[in-house]
């Protein structure tokens, strides 16, 4: 992935829309940091590559729909409600608001504003650079 092109100090071009495969989290480098960009039928999202649970690289996980059930015999799958499942412990967070699926935690997945201008994707990143960051916290949300 080539280095992103900053349109403004906070706005970073991360690629053309067609470069993002549907329902796959693509990791791009933005200002020295990993950012996951996910294109779905419902929208395009940018997330931090850090699970709010244990700090796992959540962008290496799976984009999934929502599995629900009223009983073991009646499961259903809503592919319009997309979530990111962490490869470490399987915790899932909705892409549209960062909340945990099933209410398993009050922590949220960190998301970044994203703009699409003429099919070009831009991520807004106002985080300090890693060499300027404070000690990471266990809770990103």
């Amino acid at each position, binding site marked *: 992935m080539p280095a992103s092109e900053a349109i403004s100090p906070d706005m970073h071009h991360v690629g053309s829309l067609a470069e993002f495969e549907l329902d796959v989290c693509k990791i791009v480098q933005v200002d020295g940091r990993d950012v996951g960009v996910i294109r779905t039928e419902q929208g395009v999202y940018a997330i931090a590559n850090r699970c709010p649970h244990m700090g796992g690289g959540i962008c290496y996980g799976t984009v999934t729909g929502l599995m629900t059930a009223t*009983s*073991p015999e009646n499961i259903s799958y809503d592919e319009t409600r997309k979530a990111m*499942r962490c490869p470490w412990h*399987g915790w899932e967070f909705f892409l549209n608001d960062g909340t945990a699926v*099933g209410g398993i935690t009050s922590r949220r997945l960190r998301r970044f504003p994203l703009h699409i201008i003429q099919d070009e994707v831009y991520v807004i990143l106002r985080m300090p650079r890693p060499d300027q960051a404070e000690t990471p916290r266990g809770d990103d949300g």
Partner: protein
Amino acid sequence: MPATIIDCDVHPYVNKLADVVAYMPQAWQERFRSQNVELSGRSVHRYPHPAGGSLRKDAVPPGGGLPGSDPDYVASDLLDRYDLAAALLIPIQASAVSAWTDATRADVFTEAINRYVVEHWPSVDSRYRICVTASPHDTEHAAAEVRRWRDAASVVAVSLPLLDTMMGNKHYYPIYEAAQECGMPIVVHPTGAEGSYLGAPTIAGGIPRTYAERHALVPQVAQANLASLVFEGVFDRFPELRIAFVEWGFSWLGPFMWRLDQEWRNFRSDVPWVKKPPSEYIHDAVKFTTQPFDDLSNPEDLWPFLDLIDAEKTLMFSSDYPHYDNDDPHIVSRRLLPKKSREAITSKNAREMFSARL
């Protein structure tokens, strides 16, 4: 001072098979007499008790017979001696059917013991309250037996001997439905068959060698069935169902619920019908009993474990009279429990569990 302690595990015994057989249909009377059935769930030859038996030798009634077989003597030896407000009778001999293979024979036997105990015990002392036994084999038939006792004032709960089919399995749902409908909690108690027979609950890991080793491992059965109840979604399917785990211990429960909650968080998508942390289901619908109370040199070492399980809501006193490892009601109440928890554990929680029927 009024009696307050409620004992949630007392075993009424039948002295001889003939006493029970009298409550069976004629053809079954003949069959049971000729079979000379042994009234024990535990295979006494597979795991012989080192003292030759599990009944207290000092609890033999003055007129003879098995400890726990004389309702008058149990009233004086246990209820009066310790000033108990009520005693929950769990006929452990009926649980022998968990090791049987003939479902109809098991139905006939459990129904006969139910009738025997209801007829012989509450009339002697109104503090006796009874768990009728539901055979785990033909659960539709057992559900009808549960409903048969719905209006009996002395019957407060349903004893369910377990198979190697775990409690979350729909095999048991007819019994749960009947128990919920009748407002009677399910009582689960070790049967003695665990790890001894094909079809009975297994002991995890392998085959223990001695009575001591097997006895130490029996709580595994409760843990497995708790996990099964939660992860199979039983508490959402039967929201009014209440379950008492009697004589499985309790000090393991706090860390075990941590583990259940952790697995639920990690594997939510595997069990999406489980809507809240397992510990919340358990807290709301399940209670446990005190005996065998962990015998520590410093009882206060156990108190943090009581807090872990919110024992003032989830734990009920039990003696296990007349078994060898029974606990003394006064020692547990006055010496082993923290003062702040005594009333809840020895009385309030049992009243809540068994409600107006107690």
